[in-house]
Structures are given as structure tokens and as C-alpha cells.
């Protein structure tokens, strides 16, 4: 495509609706997968801690699209969106959450431990910040082996508080490694607001900049903007410019872990939630595209139907897949 997403949308005459449509599709797909998980979670068949990213789809969709399949990515506990955005296999993800043998980790990992090496999704784990140096190490490996891959590290605003983030950013800057850090600042770590975790008035991206990693912040609910900026950073990283850091503000709609809404329990307000809901990245882009006539209601209906079908198939696949056999508990300790 010859124009950046931002240009295409700013300039309806030359609008490349294909790009925006693709971003919309990717966001909707993540949303509908997550909604389906939320809906079915109470059945008690997905028996593992599960962190949904509903409300935060824009970053996953845009960053995933800005990367190549050969690029690497790692993530943390809230990884469904990152996995899907990067091109991870949906069926295998749902099967993994169901603990099935066909899951992307053979049932050993669950929702918090996803992998799809075929598309460079090298792993997500549940210890906050624990994959950050792993992503930097993948960046080091690229440097050592040559080539123009990049390594992407997804992290949250809570992960920024771990010393290992700081150490990892320092090393990435020191060696000018091809690493893209993508921080989704959703203002909470579990139920803890920023206020009890980071000094007032401190900016995450400015701080990271001063560590030596060029940094910027952006609206994480503006998918086109996220895509545009990340894409150009990715090009620079590929060309040897060294690491980059993005802080994208966004908001998690549902509870930290599990399927429910929890604005009633007191750690955040219904008003706050509603104000963020009104900035829904999906409605926003959909509104723009429908408004400019680039997409019709019908197109959207078709898109949703396609996704619904895919999601249903994925759940059917997961439900009908076998559980791992009992002796699988005792395999994969060492690689021979």
C-alpha cells in the first residue's frame, strides 16, 4: 500500500479503505473472541485464570498488522489480543484455554501461557514483566544472526514498575537492539490505580526516553494512529535505528481476571468506565468508515458474520478436541 493509514483516512479522496477495513476486522475479531470467552467462562469448562482485553483491541490489532509474520513478539498474562493480532491460531488458543491436547501449548499452559512459533509469537507468561528481557534477548539473537526482523515486547503499565523492565530497556538501548516495546497503559494493575504505584505527574514514556530508548505516547484507542506510528517506527528499527518504546493509553472494560464487569466493587467508577466505553476503538473506526461511506452496514454485518462463524468453529474445535492423556503430565521435562 502506498499511503500510510493516517494519510489515507485524512484524505477521503485517496482513502485506502482496505487498510482501515482490515484494522476494523482485526479489532472486531479480537473483541468477538473475547466476548465469546466471557460468555462461556461461567460454564466452568475453561478452568484457568483468564485475562480479557476487551476495550484494548486497537493496540493488538494495529501492532500485529504493522509486523511481519517473521517478527517476534512476547507478552504477559493478558495476551489473547497480542497472540491473535500477531496471527496466532485461534482454534489452538481456544483449545488451550479449554486445556485440550490441541491447544497451542498442549494444555500445559492455559490462557496465560500462549505460543505460536509459526507466526513469531514466542510466548506469553504470567509473571509480570518476565518476558520483557526474553523479548530483548530475541532482539539480541536477531543482531547476532543478521536480518531485518524485529522483536516486540508487549507490556502493561504495571510491568513498567518491575526492575527487570528497566534493566531490559537499558540493555536494549546499550546494544541498539531491534526491539519494539509496546506498553498498554490501562491505568490499573489488577485493582491498583496509578496513584498508588507511580509518582504523581510522572510520564512513563518520558521516563523511558531518558533511559535511552526513544519513546512516545499515543491514544491507544485510535487504531489508525497506532498503526501509522508503530509502522513507521518498525521501519526505522528494521533499518538499525535501535529500540523504540510506545506508551498507548487505553482501558480494560471488564474485571482484571475473569469474565465479569466489576465497576460496582469500588476500585474504579462506573463514570470512568463509561467515559472510556464512549471511546471504544471499534465504534470509533466503524463510525468513521460508515460515515465516509467507505463501509456499509451490510459490509459490517458480513464481517461480523464471518467472525462469528470462525469463533463458533474455534469453540467447537476446542470442545470436541480430546484432553491430553494422563501421561502427558509427565512429558516435556527435558528436551532430549
Amino acid at each position, binding site marked *: 500500500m502506498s499511503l500510510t493509514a493516517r494519510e489515507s483516512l485524512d484524505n477521503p479522496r485517496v482513502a485506502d479503505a482496505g487498510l482501515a477495513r482490515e484494522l476494523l476486522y482485526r479489532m472486531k475479531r479480537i473483541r468477538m473472541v473475547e466476548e465469546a470467552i466471557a460468555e462461556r467462562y461461567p460454564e466452568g469448562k475453561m478452568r484457568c*485464570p483468564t485475562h480479557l482485553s476487551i476495550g484494548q483491541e486497537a493496540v493488538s490489532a494495529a501492532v500485529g498488522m504493522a509486523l511481519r509474520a517473521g517478527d517476534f513478539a512476547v507478552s504477559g498474562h493478558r495476551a489473547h489480543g497480542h497472540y491473535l493480532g500477531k496471527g496466532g491460531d485461534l482454534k489452538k488458543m481456544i483449545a488451550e484455554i479449554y486445556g485440550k491436547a490441541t491447544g497451542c501449548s498442549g494444555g500445559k499452559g492455559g490462557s496465560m501461557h500462549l505460543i505460536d512459533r509459526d507466526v513469531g509469537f514466542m510466548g506469553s507468561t504470567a509473571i*509480570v514483566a518476565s518476558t520483557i528481557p526474553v523479548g530483548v534477548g530475541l532482539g539480541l539473537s536477531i543482531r547476532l544472526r543478521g536480518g531485518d526482523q524485529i522483536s516486540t515486547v508487549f507490556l502493561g503499565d504495571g510491568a513498567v514498575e518491575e526492575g527487570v523492565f528497566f534493566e531490559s530497556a537499558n540493555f536494549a538501548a546499550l546494544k541498539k537492539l531491534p526491539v519494539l516495546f509496546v506498553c498498554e497503559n490501562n491505568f490499573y494493575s489488577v485493582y491498583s490505580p496509578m496513584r498508588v504505584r507511580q509518582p504523581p505527574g510522572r510520564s512513563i514514556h518520558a521516563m523511558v526516553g531518558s533511559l535511552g530508548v526513544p519513546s512516545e505516547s499515543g491514544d491507544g484507542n485510535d487504531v489508525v494512529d497506532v498503526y501509522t506510528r508503530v509502522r513507521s517506527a518498525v521501519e526505522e528499527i528494521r533499518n538499525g535505528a535501535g529500540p523504540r518504546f510506545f506508551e498507548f493509553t487505553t482501558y480494560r472494560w471488564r474485571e482484571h*481476571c475473569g469474565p465479569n464487569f466489576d465497576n460496582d466493587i469500588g476500585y474504579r467508577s462506573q463514570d470512568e468506565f463509561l467515559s472510556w466505553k464512549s471511546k471504544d476503538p471499534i465504534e470509533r473506526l466503524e463510525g468513521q468508515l460508515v460515515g465516509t461511506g467507505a463501509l456499509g452496514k451490510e459490509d459490517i454485518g458480513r464481517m461480523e458474520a464471518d467472525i462469528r462463524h470462525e469463533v463458533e468453529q474455534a469453540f467447537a474445535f476446542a470442545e470436541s478436541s480430546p484432553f491430553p492423556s494422563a501421561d502427558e*503430565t509427565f512429558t516435556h521435562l527435558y528436551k532430549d
Partner: protein
Amino acid sequence: MRVINFAKAINEALACAMEADQRVICYGLGVDDPKGIFGTTLGLQDRFGEDRVFDMPTSENAMTGVGIGASMNDIRPVMTHQRLDFFLLAMDQLVNNAAKWYYMFGGQQSVPITIRLILGRGWGQGPTHSQNLQSWFAHVPGLKVVMPTTPADAKGLLLSSIFDDNPVVFLEHRWLHNVEGDVPQGDFWVPIGKAHLLEEGDDLTIVSMSYMTIEALHATAHMKALGVGCDLIDLRTIMPLDWEAIAVSVRKTGRLLVLDTASETGSFAGEVIARSAMHLFDVLKQAPRRIAMPDFPSPTSPALTRGYYRGAADIVRVTSEMLGQDLKPDAAEKNRQSPHDVPGDWFKGPF
């Protein structure tokens, strides 16, 4: 006395300590949130204020050091982590500082901190949310390691831990939080370093800790009905170890089975067996045994955890082998209705 659950007992101990002594503070990720660490810290911030009860950044290592430093100026910090696994980030502060400070500075300054770590199990907690590393802590000279089973012990030992002048690692098993029991009201201490003989019998000594003691209680009840009597020793604290309680029992029964919530190799159960082999060799009538988790990370899928965790049936099976009797291991599980990967029907996941 009245019946309350383990989580409430912890909550009472914290409130009681903070009430009695201004120096006690309580912090950790989520201590003041609506869930209050599985209910254990509910209401504390309202009662004792934001200075003494506070949330923290996700910075396990520094926040351990902060507690250590505060304790040197006459503060009594109680730090909490929702899973032991997160605390792996803080081994430097725990081992290089807290455990050694009193010794390496010639006894001038001790580090009276209490670190509550919750041990996960089941509902797909998986490899990074289910580790039980008590043998690590027991291996580090200078630490005390407490692993209560009953609500009363939870309360009494937590109070003893907070007012102990040394660093205490206080391990709470997630599957115990809803266990109910009689708990004395008010200021109630249980001494660190004393085991508790929960059942008496002449046929076998079972040494256990934390959640495995619940499984052992099921097993011993089942076996008692079949005429087999066991001493069931709930260690309560593994460091210092109440070796005398074990020795007395093994001298009586001549048979030893040790249970552990951790992976088998390098487990604390192994330490107990080693000591029995070294110091009770002549009274042992047969080879001691241990039941611990397999030497594998914990898997996530319920299809995989079923064969991973050990429980009452395993205890009965091994006892059968030791005594050469068929004690009907499978029947020992029969009355328990919940799926194997939840502690009881009260647990609806996800954490």
C-alpha cells in the same frame, strides 16, 4: 471460641497485631483492594489508615528491601504476595539481606519482617502460579518458615510471626482459606517451632504440613474406620523443625510417611526422611516413604493436574503398601464431590 475460616483467622491476627502495636504495618499488591487478598486484609485500611495499610508498585524485590529497612527502625512490616511465584523476584533481599543481617553484623540488628506468601493450586494456576518452595527457605540459615493448616494455627502463628524478632516466611495455601475451625478470640499466639499432633495411633507416623494435612485427615479418618491408627503430626513450622515431636512418634510406631506440597526431589519431606534415617535408624522397622508432587512443573489443564496432585487416596495407598494391608485407597476419595481441581464448591475461579 467460634468457628471461622482460615482467611478470617488471618484477618483477625492482622487486626489484632495492628491494634496491639502501632509499629505493625501491612502492605503488598492489593492489600487494600475490594478482594482484600482472598479476604485476609479486608477492612484493615479503613481501620488503621493508609499509612499503615497500603498497596505497592509491582516491585517485589525493592519492596522486600523496604520492609527490611523499615524493620531496622522498629517497624514490624507484614508483606503479602498473592502467589509465592512472584516472590522469586525478591530472593536477593530475602536471602542476602533479611536472613543474614542479624548474623553478619554480629547480632546488633535483627530484621523482624513477616512475609506472607500464598501457594496456588488447581483451576489451571499452572506452572507459574503453583510453586511450593518451602525447602528453599528452610535451607537458608536465619529464616523461620511457617506453614499453618488450621484456622486457629493460622491466627496464632501469624501473631507469633509478626512479633518474632526474626524474618519469617509465612506460607498460606490457597486451598486452606475457606477451611473452617474453632479459633480463639482476641490475642492468641501459637509458638513457632512446635508441631501439632492431630491424630494418634500406633501403626504409622505421618508427618505433614499445610494443605497436605487436610488430605491426611481424610486419609486417617478413612483408615481409622478400618482399624489402622496413625500419628498425624502437622509440622506447623518447618524451620525451626520440631524434631522431637517426630522422633517421639517414630520411636513409638517405627514407621514414617512424610507428606509435602512441593516437588519431590529436594523437598522438605526429604530432609525429614534424611534426619530419620540418620537419627532414628535403629527404630525404623521399614523404609520410610514420602508423598510429594512429581518432579515436573505444574501443568494447567485439569486433565493433567488430576494425575499431578497427590491426596488422601495416595496416602492410603502408600500406607497399604507399608503395612501390607489393603486399606481401599479408592474409597478414601469417594465422599469428596467437588472436581479435583478446586478446593471445594465455594471456589468458582478464576484465581
